[in-house]
Structure formats: C-alpha cells, structure tokens
C-alpha cells in the first residue's frame, strides 16, 4: 500500500511537469468549450424577421396583420412592413428578412365570399424553417374561414339543396373548429449548448489520458523501470495500484478544473454539485479501468497508442461527445447507452434541464460503474501480467 502511494506520487509529479498533459487536461477542453459557447451564443433562441406586404388593405388583411403583432407571436417574429412584392423578394433573397408574407389585392373580398385566393409566403432556400413557420401562422389564421367553407360544401354534398348555401354559410360563421392545441409548460429548462459541450469536451480530453498513461507505462517498461520496481520489495499489485491511483487523481483534477472554469467563465451548468461530482468520479473510475485494459491488451508503446486512440474515439463518437445526441436518430441514442460517456452526458443533460439531484443521476452512475466493473474485471488479470512480464 505504502509503495503504491510512493509510485502514484512519483507518477503525478512527472505528469504535472509534462506540458502536454496540462494542455490536454485543461487548456484544450476549456478552449473548445469556450469556442462553442461563443459560436452558439444566442443560437438557443429562435427568432426571425418577417416581411409583410399588404396589397389589399382590406379588413381581413388588417386582421391578419394584427394577428401577427400579437404578444404571443412577438417572441418569435418581428414584423417588417414592406412596400412591394419586388422589394420583399429582394429582402428575402439577401436575407435581410428571413421570409415574407404577401397579401394580394382583393384578398379580403375573396375571403368573405366563397372565392379562392392565396397568400404567398416568400421563402429562401437558406431559411426554409422561417418560411415554414410563417406559413403555419398564416394557415392557422385562415383555417377558420376554410373550415366554414368546407362545412357548407359538406352539408350540400350530404344532401342540402344548393339554394340554401347562403343560409348555411351564415350558420357556419358561428362554428368553431373543435380541436384545439393547448400549451402546458413543463417547468424544464432547455439545455444550453455550452452546458452540453463543456462536459462533452471535458470527458473527451479525460479519455485522452488513457492514451497518455498507457503509453508511459510501456515507455517505462522498455526502459527497464518496471523491472527495477519489481526488484524492490514491492508487490506487482502495488505497482499496478500506484499507476491506477495516479490516473485517478489526475482525472479527477482535470475534470474538476474544467468544471470550475467552464461554469465560472462561460456559465456552463453541470447541475447540482454533489450529483455532478458523483458522475465525474464514476467516469474517472471508468477511465482508470479502460487504461488498465489498454495496458493489458497492448505489448508496446506504439500498440498502446493505437488501441487507446481507437477506444477513445469510438467511445466518444458513439457516446455523443461530438454531436448533440438528443437530435440524433433513436438507434444512435440507444447505442450511446453502451458507453460510460453516453450515460454521463445524459446525466448532465438531465441535471441541467430538470435541476435534479442525486436521484437523477442514480441510474447513470450505476450504469457507468457497471461498465467499469466489466472492463475492470477483464483488465485486471491482463494488466497484472503486463506488470510481471
């Protein structure tokens, strides 16, 4: 035990002296999280400018315009009145407005009669979603009118005499569409980009220590240093334990620092401290087990680097460290749960969106520890052999 601590202390001393370790463990993840936070500042909100051309100036057109200026819509739409369709096209093309709505002349008259007419949504290929939302808003507005017309037509089709059309139309104006959408806020906060990617990048760079540590083990072995340790009155298990301890301490320190810096400087929300800390600790345990596995599987420094790189990048890709996993297809989201980092990111997302605590992370932490257990059990024997070889 004592020897393990001596070895761990020496390893940490060497690690702290190595500048690459500091760069990878602290500078890189913070820099990348900062970049992402900067890039996506404000991208969490959906808001656009909608151009409006009123060529009709009739009552229905005015009603539509007033509808567009309601407070409920103002959160997502800013209205910009334009003079002509030509101007609107130009504005949309240059994206000075995201989309535009054109009310043709004679619109109001047509709407109140049973003639057809059309509103035009001008769309740019670079912002189809703004045009789609504009179209939806306009459609909801004219839905009642169309519903009434359909009602009259259906009545006639089911047998009412056409002479009664006007009467039916009058009756139809009292109708209301019987299906309604009602909003119920959950009280959850949407996950901020930086709150997802700060942990994601921290975890990626935590995984890089697998490569670093396993490589240095083989470098030491090639230099005869492991053998020298074994010639001392030190049990091989203590050598392995010492290495494991140093990886653990460095991992915790690295994650902890990135947590502090991204939370303080970029407002990243990692969630309730105790819960987030537990997730971090369990991830470091997983990292330690993975390091032992790489040491057990590889024979040389080069091999260790190769295996470690493969393990790290595949885990990171599948687990969602590079893409916002929530928007991925469900099969990918399920695959992510085969990785410890996938569970960790899920835990952090849940913590920052629901403001939960230890109970929120119970399942993820158990999953991560289970993964560590499986990997660790496989690795322990192999790694022991690597030390005594």
């Amino acid at each position, binding site marked *: 035990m004592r020897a393990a601590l001596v070895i761990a202390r020496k390893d940490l001393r060497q690690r702290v002296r190595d500048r690459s370790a500091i*760069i990878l463990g602290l500078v890189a993840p913070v820099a990348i999280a900062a970049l992402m936070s900067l890039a996506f*500042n404000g991208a969490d909100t959906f*808001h656009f400018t909608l151009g409006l051309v009123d060529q009709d100036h009739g009552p229905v057109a005015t009603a539509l315009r007033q509808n567009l200026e309601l407070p409920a819509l103002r959160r997502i739409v800013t209205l910009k009145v334009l003079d002509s369709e030509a101007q609107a096209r130009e504005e949309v093309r240059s994206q000075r407005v995201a989309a535009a709505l054109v009310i043709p002349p004679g619109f109001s008259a047509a709407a109140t009669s049973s003639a057809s007419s059309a509103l035009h949504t001008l769309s740019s290929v670079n912002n189809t979603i703004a045009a789609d939302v504009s179209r939806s808003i306009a459609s909801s507005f004219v839905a009642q009118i169309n519903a009434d017309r359909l009602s009259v037509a259906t009545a006639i089709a089911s047998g009412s005499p056409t002479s009664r059309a006007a009467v039916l139309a009058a009756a139809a104006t009292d109708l209301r569409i019987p299906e309604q959408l009602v909003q119920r806020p959950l009280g959850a906060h949407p996950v901020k980009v930086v709150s997802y990617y700060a942990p994601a990048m921290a975890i990626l760079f935590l995984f890089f220590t697998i490569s670093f540590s396993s490589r240095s083990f083989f470098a030491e072995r090639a230099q005869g240093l492991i053998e020298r340790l074994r010639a001392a009155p030190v049990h091989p298990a203590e050598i392995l334990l010492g290495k494991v301890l140093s990886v653990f301490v460095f991992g915790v320190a690295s994650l902890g620092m990135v947590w502090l810096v991204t939370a303080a400087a970029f407002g990243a929300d990692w969630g309730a401290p105790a819960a987030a800390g537990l997730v971090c600790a369990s991830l470091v345990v997983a990292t330690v087990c993975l390091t032992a596995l790489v040491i057990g599987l590889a024979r040389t420094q080069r091999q260790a680097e190769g295996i470690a790189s493969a393990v790290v990048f595949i885990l990171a890709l599948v687990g969602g460290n590079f893409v916002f996993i929530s928007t991925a297809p469900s099969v990918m989201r399920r695959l992510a749960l085969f990785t410890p980092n996938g569970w960790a990111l899920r835990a952090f997302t849940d913590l920052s969106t629901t403001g939960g605590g230890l109970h929120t992370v119970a399942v993820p932490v158990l999953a991560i520890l289970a993964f560590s257990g499986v990997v660790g059990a496989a690795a322990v024997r192999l790694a022991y052999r690597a030390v005594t070889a």
Partner: protein
Amino acid sequence: MTPIAIAKASLQRVVRDRRALFFMIALPILVIIIIGATVRGYNRFSVGVVDLGSGRAGHDLVAALADSSDLTVHAYRSTASATTAVARGEVSLALVLPASMDAGLRAGRSVAVTALTEEASTTQEAAYNAVASVVASQGSRLQAARFATSVQGGTLDQNLSRAASLEARVPVVAVETLQVDARSNTLPEGFSYSTPTMLVLFVFINTLTGAASIIETRRLGMYERMSVAPVRPRAIVAGEAMSLVTLSLLQALLIVGTGALLFGVSWGDPLAAATLVVLWAVVAAGVGLLAGTLFRSPEQASALGPTLGILFGMLGGCMWPLSIVSPAVRAIGHATPHAWAVDAWTALIARGAGFAGIATDLAVLVAFAVALMALATWRLGRRLV
C-alpha cells in the same frame, strides 16, 4: 532521385503504423456516418406524440402530422417518457392525445390536445405553431362533418369521408410558398454534409499529426546522415513535402471515393472538385511541415494535432454550418483555411457551381498554401543545417 527516396521511406513508415491507419481510414468513415446521420435537424422540428387511446380522430391527426414537411414525429408510450424526451431536447414538444378524443368529437364537444413544452424555448414555440396549423386543418374536417350531420343528417363517418374528398375541390384561402432563390449557403443534409466537411477536417488533422511526428523522429537521424551523405537540405525538404502531399491526397481520395460509392455523395464539377482536393492536400501538407518545425516531440504532435484540428474544424464550419453562428464568429472562422474550403465545397455541391464559382476560395487557399510552404521550408532548412 533523393527526394523520391525520402518520400517513399516516410510513406512506408506511415503504412506500417496501425494507429495512423486507424486515424486515416477507420475513424473518418465512422465520423462521416455518425455526423451524417445526425445532422438533419436544421430544417425540421421533432415532436413527440403520446396516444392515450384517442381513437380514429387521434390516428388521423398523427398521420397528418407525419405528412407535414416541417415535422418529424416520434411516438412515446407514456406521458412520463414523453416528458423526459422534451426535457432532454429530443423533441421540441410532446402532444398528449386524450383518451376521450374521438368519442368527445363525435358527441359534439370540443377537444383540447395538450402540448408539453419547455419553459422559455422559442424553438419550441415555432414548433408549436407548426403543429397548431396541422391541428387546425384536421379540425376543419370534423367541423364540416358535424355541421353536415346536424343540418342534413347521415353518420359522422360518412360526412367525414365527404369532407375529406371535398377538401381538394372547395375554393380555399390558401397559403402558398414561393422560393425566391436557389443559392443555398449550406451543404445539404446528411452525408452530403458530413463527407465534404470531414474531408476537410481529417486531411488536416492527419497530416498535421503524422507529419510532425515523422519529421521529429527523422530530425535526429538526419543530422548524422547529413554529415555523411551528399544530400542537400533542399532535397530533404522537397522529399518531406512530397510525402506529405501524397499522404494527404491518398486520404482525400479515400474519403472522396467512399463518399461517392457508399454514401451517394455527388462532389460537383469534376475539374473544380479535383482542383480543390489537390489544393487542400497542399495546404494540409504545408501545415504539417510547419508543425514539424514547431512541435518538440512526437508526443506533443499526438496531443496538439487532434486538438488544433478540432478547434480549426469547429471555427471553419466542419462541425456545423457557419450560417448558424453569429457574423462575428463567422468572420473569425474565415481566418482558417477550413472555412474557405467548406465554402468552396458548398458552392460545388449545393449550388452546382463550376470553376469560376469557386475562384475566390481557390485563390485564398493558394495563398495559404504558398505562405505555409514557404514558412515551413525556411524553418526546416534552418534546422537541418
């Protein structure tokens, strides 16, 4: 010829290095697949649906939602799981279709469909509007059917069918979409997005990492060899540069080929595309050579290579389109050669441009290549003397 011999030796070493092969072959393809599968979310909203036994009316609504071009629908078995999905951002909102929906509508009542949403999310509000318009159009059919039944008689279902068939014929106040331009500023969704951007990213990262370490380990042997063999520093630099360009080209060709054959990516005008590929390979080689003179050890190369590569890739628009970031960040991004390369690929693939269309981008890349190669050659030449 000595430079060729040197280039050959360097390439042989890379081919034998399994880690390098993983980074050059397996990883890029994996990343392309994953990012290609995920990058679809910019033009559609995801909505969840929980059907608590809503009957036919509910099914019709879900079918109409699925048909909508701006929505992707995911079904959930319970309100709890849908709630979690909304909280996680997997869907923008979740609709709960009540058990009494169909019955209530038939009985003449009005039905409210609840949309579960997050607080303060405008994305969700936009999705809400999209859903609302679908609900409204569904509801019109029901209104029409109920009206006809009450006025004229017949069953509700008969009138529903009548209403459905009449929808297309009744003169309506329509809302039509007109597209005013065809100049897309972003690459299309899916693999046509990820393959070109990953081409830019990976050729850069791999040349940067690989080159730096090759050169560094060479450097020690070179000094000894220099004193014995009549080899001029210029020949060595030329050899290293050649091997790097070859490496980059091979990597690029692998990705281009895989993209075209496996993912159905069309790379645009062949001549322009080929020029862009070669030019990017030269830029990457320049960066690699320069890195070889700046990095102090192979370990540094392995550590800093991927880091800088990811950083520049993010800035340059390889991970997400620069059109979604603020103008300031976009401008900073154009300090990297990546942004210009992605712009060129966007022009070629999304807008079908030819050589002329990417002339500016190519010119900037040429400038980058020349500057990098010159700087690297100068530094390397000094180190070898």
